């Protein structure tokens, strides 16, 4: 132990002896470690987002009228809606825990965008009506809709929707009035007019903002159920039912029962959402792993090169150490110590950069990595809406320690090989 301390002190001084080179290696490896941390933070946030969505959908069944999207104002509209009284029948089915009716209207707004207006009951989940209904939302400002809001003209807005009416997280004031009519467009050239809009012209008070992680998801506006019924004239009709089953193993059985009893419905289970999720997750994980591997290899290669120079320059010293009794293990302590110290310093630089510039670089980094492989709107909106932590947490320190060990170990390989084969006589002649 004593020898190890002594040798590590010697290794440390060796780095200081060639401090110019050490600084250069740190300047090169620091950003590599930074990228590794950014990748991990983004990947963790993404996985968390997708895991949450997956968990949300695992025991969920969606019902809607056959061959419809369930939107109240599409062609066919109200005639293709589900009868509200279906809820009782569904709720009585074995293994069904909860039934949540949704009212959905699709609305064109400024530019070539569509928004979804969704009527939900106070206690029901705020789900996305897009992407296989895989999502739940996070309230990021203000409050959720409550029982006291039923029948009132209040709304919970997605961040993307809010942005179009110039509401942001920074300037949002709960209770602010928004004239939804101003957003709706009338027969712009090249735009297919969808349905009728009975909601236009009314001021809605925005009580809260949410984010979902999806571009379309964040273009949603939740309204109290009765408010939606009032404005869209949808009393007695439901766009879709979300049915929560008690256990994932019972989902197929419940779906089969529904198919038997209500043959004129489209039944959508997790498999639809899972297809999207597994594709997205698979891509993310592949990108993440490739990046992590490449970062470790790159930093390791830089350190390897520095150690290669060090071992060649100090061949006489290493020979002397062997001559005066250093074992190969003693030399390994010096060389691995030097390499790991160098890697550790690089990791520390990366950690400091991460702590200081993580927020600044994180989003750009996401767009340059995950974003490249995602459809355009995901690349932007996922990151904008995702809650990512760039704090220097204990987890980040653990990652840096592991990365240090890996890159340091990798970086010392050549020098170790040299030390193993070193003949003291040949080294002293060098």
């Amino acid at each position: 132990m004593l020898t190890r301390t002594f040798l590590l002190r010697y290794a440390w001084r060796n780095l200081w002896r060639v401090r110019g080179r050490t600084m250069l290696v740190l300047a090169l490896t620091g950003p590599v470690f930074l990228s590794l941390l950014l990748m991990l933070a983004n990947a963790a946030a993404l996985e968390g987002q997708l895991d949450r969505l997956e968990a949300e959908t695992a025991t969920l069944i969606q019902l809607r009228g056959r061959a419809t999207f369930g939107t109240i104002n599409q062609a066919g509209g109200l005639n293709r809606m589900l009868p509200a009284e279906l809820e009782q029948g569904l709720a009585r089915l074995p293994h069904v825990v909860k039934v949540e009716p949704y009212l959905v209207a699709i609305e064109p707004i400024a530019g070539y965008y569509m928004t979804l207006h969704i009527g939900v009951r106070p206690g029901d989940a705020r789900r996305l009506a897009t992407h296989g209904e895989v999502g739940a939302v996070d309230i990021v400002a203000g409050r959720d809709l409550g029982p006291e809001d039923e029948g009132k003209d209040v709304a919970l807005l997605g961040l993307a929707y809010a942005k179009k009416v110039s509401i942001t997280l920074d300037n949002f004031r709960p209770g602010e009035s928004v004239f939804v009519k101003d957003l709706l467009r009338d027969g712009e050239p090249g735009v297919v007019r969808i349905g009728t809009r009975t909601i236009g012209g009314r001021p809605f008070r925005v009580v809260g903002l949410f984010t979902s992680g999806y571009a379309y998801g964040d273009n949603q506006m939740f309204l109290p159920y009765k408010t939606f019924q009032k404005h869209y004239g949808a009393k007695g009709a439901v766009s879709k039912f979300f049915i929560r089953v008690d256990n994932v193993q019972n989902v197929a059985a419940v779906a089969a029962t529904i198919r038997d009893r209500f043959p004129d419905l489209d039944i959508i289970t997790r498999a639809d959402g899972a297809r999207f999720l597994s594709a997205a997750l698979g891509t993310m994980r592949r990108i993440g792993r490739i990046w992590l591997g490449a970062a470790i290899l790159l930093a390791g290669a830089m350190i390897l090169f520095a150690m290669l120079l060090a071992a060649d320059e100090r061949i006489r010293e290493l020979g002397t150490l062997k001559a005066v009794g250093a074992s190969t293990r003693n030399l390994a302590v010096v060389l691995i110590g030097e390499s790991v110290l160098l890697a550790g310093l690089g990791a520390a630089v990366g950690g400091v950069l991460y702590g200081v510039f993580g927020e600044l670089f994180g989003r750009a980094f996401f767009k340059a990595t995950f974003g490249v492989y995602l459809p355009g709107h995901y690349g932007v909106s996922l990151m904008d809406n995702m809650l990512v932590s760039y704090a220097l947490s204990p987890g980040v320190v653990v990652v840096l320690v592991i990365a240090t060990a890996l890159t340091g170990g990798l970086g010392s390989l050549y020098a170790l090989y040299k030390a193993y084969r070193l003949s003291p006589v040949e080294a002293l002649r060098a």
Partner: protein
Amino acid sequence: MPDIILELRGVAKRYGVGAAKVEALAGLDLTQESGGVLALVGPSGSGKSTLLHVIGGMDRADEGEVFAVGEALHRLSPSKLTTFRRHKVGFVFQAFNLMPNLTALENVMLPAEFAGMSGKEARRRAEELLERVGLSGRMRHRPGQLSGGEQQRVAIARAFINDPALVIADEPTGNLDTKTGAAIVELLTSLAGKQTVIIATHDERIAGAADRVIHLADGQITAEEAGRAKGDAEERQPVGR
């Protein structure tokens, strides 16, 4: 009967291949009793350094048997040779070979660390040795802050730290001026108590400080004489194969 610390039988060492092959040691026999100073004298290329490396366990003979400090070096594995060097041999090099980023004290402590001596004991011994070589005031200095003579004193202290049975010095004065060189040789011989010191040199004057002088040429012992330490009266005795 005096102890034999070193015995070489038919030791040969060759370098290179084919026409470029050089016979550094050509079937050399040598026996050395324990204690005293043995000088290996000869011109460059005579095989002095090679012989020291073989005796010190840094290199292996191609042929022959080498017994040193009770070990059959020709049979030892590389790791056992390391252990042998660590505990039984001290080295002094022509170019001092100190670690430039360790202080004089740390340089002297280095072999003790490898030998597993406690830090406290290693420091105590290193300080004592540095005091004996006249560097008590320069223990915290790094090699770059010391003169050549001072560096060689540090190297000598390093060679003695583990109290080895054998101290090997390869041209210890080669990089020093005459006066400093003489002082270094005097120091080496004065430190040698129970140790056997073997000095390789091509400087015949240094040999005068030895108890025994062996002349080498072309990898063979060409002559042997008692050094000045044993009296100038003794004549040089030719030794041949």
